């Protein structure tokens, strides 16, 4: 008996890079990564590991459509941004959210106004019109008491959470996080990892649709057993390492090498079964 065939065309990958050269965001003449082949499909949960100045943030900026590759082919949601019309580019970019280290909130707006900005701008809503959505998200993120505060009144942990809320407010399909755990204390890092896991599995805020995630890090240990795909950025190259690293030594050599160089301070954040 033949199984029924699904005739619908498969959705294009969220990110498709072939032979891509990535330049530094601030110095476009400086190539930081070459020959990058990276495909992100819906439901993936990537962690990209690399040391300082390895090109992690530059690669994420490219994957978020904020820059163009120096060389090679790059498609975001199946759209070649170099050739696309302004409307197609905008439509593709509205399907993603970016979370920066430190949150990067606009310092002249309150926390709630910062989070409402993408909603108000892209849907032409007033602040009052966006209030319900923003308040719900603030509650989920745990910032309901800080809604009216200015970013300068928030500590580092809360600034990052507010930046994450702003990235999620349009209910994106693709979330990129630049070094989300760096400098966080144990408890806050654990909150982030648990929350990202919920998002990857399908959070009620995202209408229970699994969110595709990519995060960068210079410390793989907290992500062991959390993320599903790993890659290491080393010597201007992008190396996909497949499955999750384990402390027991089952990881691929590059991952193992990277983890061995990582300080042991992050031990304990990863779930118990990985230790």
């Amino acid at each position, binding site marked *: 008996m033949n199984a029924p065939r699904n005739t619908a065309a498969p959705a294009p990958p969220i990110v498709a890079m072939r032979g891509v050269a990535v330049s530094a*965001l*601030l110095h476009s003449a400086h190539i930081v990564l070459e020959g990058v082949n990276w495909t992100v499909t819906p439901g993936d949960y990537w962690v990209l590991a690399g040391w300082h100045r390895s090109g992690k943030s530059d690669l994420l*900026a490219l994957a*978020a459509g*904020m820059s163009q590759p120096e060389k090679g082919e790059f498609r975001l949601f199946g759209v070649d941004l170099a050739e696309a019309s302004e409307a197609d580019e*905008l439509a593709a*970019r*509205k399907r993603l*959210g*970016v979370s*920066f280290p*430190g949150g*990067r*909130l*606009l*310092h*002249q707006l309150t926390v709630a106004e910062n989070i409402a*900005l*993408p909603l*108000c*701008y*892209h849907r*032409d*809503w*007033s602040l009052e019109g966006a209030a319900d959505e923003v308040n719900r998200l603030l509650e989920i993120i745990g910032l309901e008491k800080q809604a009216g505060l200015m970013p300068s009144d928030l500590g580092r942990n809360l600034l990052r959470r507010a*930046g994450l809320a*702003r*990235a999620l407010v349009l209910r994106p399909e693709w979330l990129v996080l630049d070094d989300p755990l760096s400098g966080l204390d144990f408890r806050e890092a654990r909150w982030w990892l648990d929350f990202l896991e919920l998002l990857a599995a399908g959070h009620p805020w995202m209408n229970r649709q699994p969110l595709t995630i990519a995060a960068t890090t210079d410390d793989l240990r907290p992500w062991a057993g959390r993320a599903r795909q790993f890659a290491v950025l080393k010597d201007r190259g992008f190396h996909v390492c497949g499955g999750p690293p384990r402390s027991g030594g089952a990881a691929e050599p590059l991952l193992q090498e990277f983890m061995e160089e990582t300080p042991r301070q992050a031990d304990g954040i990863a779930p118990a079964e990985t230790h």
Partner: protein
Amino acid sequence: MDHTTESSPNSWRWALAWERSLNRLAGRRLLGIFSLLRGLGAFGLITLSVMVRKTSVARRVIQPLIFKELLRSGWRLLPMTLFFAIALGLVVIGQTVTLLSQVGANEYLGAIMASVVVRELGPLLTVLLVLLRVGTANVVELGTARALGEVEAIEAMSIDPIHYLVVPRVIGMALGVFTLTIYLILGALVSGYLWAFLRDVALLPSAYFEQLAAALGWLDFALLALKTITFGTIIAVVTCYHGLARPLTLTDVSSATVRAVSQSFVLCVMADGIFLMVFLVAQ
């Protein structure tokens, strides 16, 4: 030993080297000016294009920003503008009344006020005021936002930074300079008459305002509107360009501010010269 024959080739070499380095310096400066004008022109055209293409985009976000900018570049500067207006009336009348009384030419008081205050000093003083109070703040705000990565955050939200940060400033400052100039001119004309009255000049208010009306034509009003809107646009474009167009660190912000202020003023004076030529040709 003859020193002159030995030293002259060296002197020539020094002179040639000096001339070459001067030429290089002048060339570099000239290229720098061209590059700056090209950058400013491109930035201005991009802003204009965004302003036209995105007129109906995100009105509920952009309109409050324009209103905020108008408050900052207009309403909040009104007390200082009126102070400048009173001072300008005093300076012009104080200097000219004595001179005109000596030669019995008080009937030219209105004409002098019109040509000095309406055509030249009014718009230039307003520009200086807006530039120092708002233009500097513009560069600092945008430069800091750029240095702290907020501009990248705006791009990451798929918001055009030119639309969100520059367009409201250009519209707000252009309208702000226009309205403040009107208030400054009106204030200076009224205060000018008051100072003349205090100096016992035999001139009725009706005669003074008749003189003013006779000295001003439609071209003055048209050029005044065009000039003030141009000045406001120049200040906004130059200050936004220096705050946004290049990657900045926090330490670069102060030098960018100084550059933006001096370049804005020089460009406004140059534009004023062009308007003066247009006026002289069209009159």
